[in-house]
């Protein structure tokens, strides 16, 4: 079968992606490092006036209900925490990537942002149930970035996506990722991985993006993280924060139980907590 998508053209589209702003790159590097300090984050943000303004606007948004306005960047950052800060920075600097509709997936404006943001909180909650150490902050960032591949892949995928659900229903493939592979010759996780390399993301994030649908294949040092994001992704889709026609059409890797200790009760609590954080963050960030 000849793929309906020119994978060479997709690769080229990745090569010509503009570089991310230095504040994004630096922040991702910093947050992926063990034992970074709040001051490291302040140092990155303070040189960017627009970003500083946005952080202050967010902390003073009615969602947080603070009595006295926060005017110091350092106070704002320590109050909001790394989760909200990385979300603000990505929304501010890469907003278009997350908010543009995804025609290949039948997804509306901002669907990817909502999906990624929910996945981020759910991945972080999952990390708390890991049998071995799994850094919750890193799980959050990885969750936020896990599906960036869809941004580049979507317009190309539109030529073939009409057949994807049919192929799954007919049992020719086991899930949406395989349908992408079959019909396009590559999938959104692979595309995301190539983007992550292009942008020189820290290795852990590269791995989580690459393996979020096949966490068992991730190198051992990144396997917990990849599973956390894999499960966070499932929870986001279950909560209705999906990206359109591929919603819930992915295989859950049951081997997660080797790495995570979660009962169905735990899962209900995780779902509830993730949803609560998500709603609050969505309201305070208000990405247009």
């Amino acid at each position, binding site marked *: 079968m000849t793929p309906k998508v020119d994978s060479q053209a997709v690769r080229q589209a990745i090569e010509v992606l503009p570089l991310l702003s230095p504040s994004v790159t630096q922040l991702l590097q910093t947050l992926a490092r063990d034992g970074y300090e709040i001051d490291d984050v302040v140092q990155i943000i303070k040189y960017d006036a627009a970003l500083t303004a946005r952080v202050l606007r967010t902390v003073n948004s009615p969602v947080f209900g603070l009595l006295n306005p926060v005017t110091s960047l350092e106070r704002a950052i320590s109050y909001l925490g790394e989760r909200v800060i990385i979300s603000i920075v990505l929304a501010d600097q890469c907003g278009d990537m997350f908010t543009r509709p995804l025609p290949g997936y039948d997804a509306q404006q901002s669907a990817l942002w909502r999906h990624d943001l929910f996945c981020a909180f759910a991945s972080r909650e999952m990390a708390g149930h890991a049998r071995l150490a799994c850094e919750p902050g890193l799980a959050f960032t990885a969750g936020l970035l896990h599906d960036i591949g869809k941004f580049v892949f979507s317009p190309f995928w539109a030529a073939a996506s009409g057949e994807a659900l049919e192929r799954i229903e007919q049992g020719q493939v086991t899930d949406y990722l395989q349908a992408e592979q079959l019909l396009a010759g590559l999938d959104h996780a692979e595309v995301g991985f190539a983007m992550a390399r292009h942008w020189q993301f820290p290795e852990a994030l590269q791995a989580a993006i690459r393996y979020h649908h096949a966490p068992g294949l991730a190198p051992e040092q990144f396997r917990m993280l990849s599973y956390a994001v894999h499960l966070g992704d499932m929870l986001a*889709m279950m909560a209705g924060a999906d990206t359109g026609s591929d919603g819930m059409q992915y295989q859950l890797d049951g081997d997660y139980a080797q790495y995570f200790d979660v009962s169905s009760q735990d899962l209900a609590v995780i779902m509830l907590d993730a949803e609560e954080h998500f709603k609050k963050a969505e309201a305070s960030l208000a990405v247009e």
Partner: protein
Amino acid sequence: MRQVVLGIGDLGASNTPGEVVKTYALGSCVAVMMLYPKTRAVGMVHVALPESSINPAKGQSCPGYFADLGVPLLLREMVRLGCPGNGRGIIVKLAGGASVMGHNDTFNIGKRNILAVKRSLWSLGMGAIAEDVGANYSRTVTMSVDSGLITISCPGRGQWEI
């Protein structure tokens, strides 16, 4: 046409002509819908989890989130719109409760939601006459006051009625 849009855990009922009650992308959540043809009252609750016992405070602030509290509350809303308190003559339909692929019981919150909703209806002496539940896709549902019709849609799959 005015739309009453329900988020997760929200509950809404209406008998205003021209109005529709709608909820987006149910995923593993379940929409419990009640219709009272006599007065054209319709109501819906977007249930996310089976039992409020996991977080009683949330049950207080957002009872519609849980099957055990949301279903009786929906009946109370219908009664407020003039339906009989014993539920007689109210038609109940369900949608949602989907799961991701891979047959994992722990992650099948959808199935537990459907069971809990049915249990809760049962305890009120009610039962669903139609349902579009389970499988691996997320449903958006719309309920019309004028026609009493329930329309379900899903990206890539079109729309249909129950």
